[in-house]
């Protein structure tokens, strides 16, 4: 059991929306091995973000349990979640809204290191040194630390968000739609950066995306979600080449591809 990085048992989360009950996640059983690179795909509203927020301990389930490295985190009070905050870090879709516009980039990146909860775990870590290290790791100039988020492009802001996530030396990086808001050329740069970082830092990686090609590029395992459940999972290439559900096949078919000749499939003209 304790060999798992994450394990969930009948993980369920219901929201209440104007008196209506929304079953965002229902009875999800999942095991993730250390060093895994897991992709989670599915249409919007299928429960991807809900699932990873529960894994990161940012939300509490309605029922069911989550273990991280053998410790059941579901029942832990906030003050005992410090180890989780240090070990599991998240990067979100929109770097514009996830970075505090009034803080300098250096303070944004070192913010997790100043957290009261994390401090015991990060004893002896020198903030300035770590700041320089993570800025270099994401290919930003050292003087970026003194500037504000609005002075950076979308791709650079996503690098800042990744640097902040790396700062407390996590074991797991969870990226929720990390490239969905980026231009194609910037997307390629950020995907290359994530690939390199995972290898260099020996991170486990969990990537959420509605785009199966993004996940295929980064991950070797895949879980497909629909309406709050995992409907298909397995090695990425297997799911990609031989989807076992029509739903996954439809997700694959919906990916737009560049048409270079007239009259190719998908093109009406």
């Amino acid at each position, binding site marked *: 059991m304790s060999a798992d990085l994450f394990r969930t048992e009948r993980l369920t989360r219901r929201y209440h929306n104007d008196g209506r009950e929304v079953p965002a996640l229902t009875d999800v059983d999942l095991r993730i091995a250390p060093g895994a690179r897991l992709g989670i795909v599915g249409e919007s509203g299928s429960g991807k973000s809900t699932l990873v927020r529960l894994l990161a301990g940012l939300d509490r389930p309605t029922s069911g349990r989550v273990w991280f490295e053998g410790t059941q985190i579901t029942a832990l009070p906030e003050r005992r979640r410090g180890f989780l905050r240090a070990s599991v870090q998240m990067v979100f879709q929109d770097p514009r809204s996830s970075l505090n516009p009034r803080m300098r980039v250096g303070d944004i990146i070192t913010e997790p290191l100043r957290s009261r909860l994390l401090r015991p775990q990060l004893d002896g870590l020198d903030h300035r040194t770590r700041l320089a290290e993570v800025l270099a790791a994401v290919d930003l100039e050292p003087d970026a630390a003194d500037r504000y988020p609005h002075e950076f492009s979308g791709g650079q802001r996503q690098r800042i968000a990744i640097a902040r996530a790396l700062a407390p030396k996590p074991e797991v990086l969870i990226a929720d739609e990390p490239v969905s808001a980026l231009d194609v050329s910037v997307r390629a740069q950020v995907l290359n950066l994530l690939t390199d970082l995972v290898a260099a830092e020996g991170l486990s990686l969990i990537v959420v995306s509605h785009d199966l090609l993004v996940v295929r590029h980064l991950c070797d395992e895949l879980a497909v979600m629909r309406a709050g459940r995992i409907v298909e999972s397995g090695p990425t290439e297997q799911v990609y080449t031989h989807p076992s559900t029509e739903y996954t096949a439809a997700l694959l078919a919906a990916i*737009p591809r560049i048409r270079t000749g007239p009259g190719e499939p998908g093109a009406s003209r």
Partner: protein
Amino acid sequence: MTLLEVCDLTVTFGRHRRPALDGVCFSLDAGCRLGVIGESGSGKTVTALAVMGLLPEYARVSGTVELAGHQITQLSESGLARLRGDVVSMVFQEPMTALDPTMRVGRQVAEVLRLHAGAESGPARAAVVRMLAEVGLSDPDRVADAYPHQLSGGQRQRVILAMALINAPDLVICDEPTTALDVTVQATVLAKLDEVLEASGAACLFISHDLAVVSQVCDQVVVMLDGRIVETGSVADLFANPQHPYTKGLVAAAQLDAATPGQRLPVVEDFYQPDAGAKR
């Protein structure tokens, strides 16, 4: 027949800034579809706003924009208002900002119709419901009575599409119309757009940073970089055989499925040889 002719269009915001558009020229025939691709900040939206006559007053504009025989840059505000809807309409990226959150969706679509056709409320309602059905909304009566927040992202974008099409304009400008949608919903909205454009015979100026989407929807493409058009061609030629290093880079970076998983992806910079003199 040429519907839209943009000639040497230059737009500057503020005295000391680089032009947002710098000598942009292109033309679009009636019933044809032109894609505009390029990274964010390259000038795609400013181009669309110039064609709609929606640039802010402080923008300095030179060059000409001729749409269905009208000189857009010379028209008065009332002249422009008459063109919008009848001749040209626009679909924006974020459906939430284009819809009034406090008004039922059906009334918002009817308002567009009333503005241009002077229709009575009874027939207007029927026309609205018909249009909502035409853009693929399966329960158009219910949708007409809903407020925007009660609809999904894909439904909202279809409502916007209905507003853009209801006066049967000659040109529909779509600015990143599906960027906020996920791939499955995007596919259905694009298929519907294709169908309604085909049925109405309207031309389309289709802006997107997603090359694959543009290749699915358009016949011709222009590639923008820093306010200039760096390459123009048919979809088939330009994507199969890009000439400009920037276009080569974009096409390579966009083809995620062509890369081996985990291997380094090509980026635009790879296509600028340091000694070739081509400089971004």
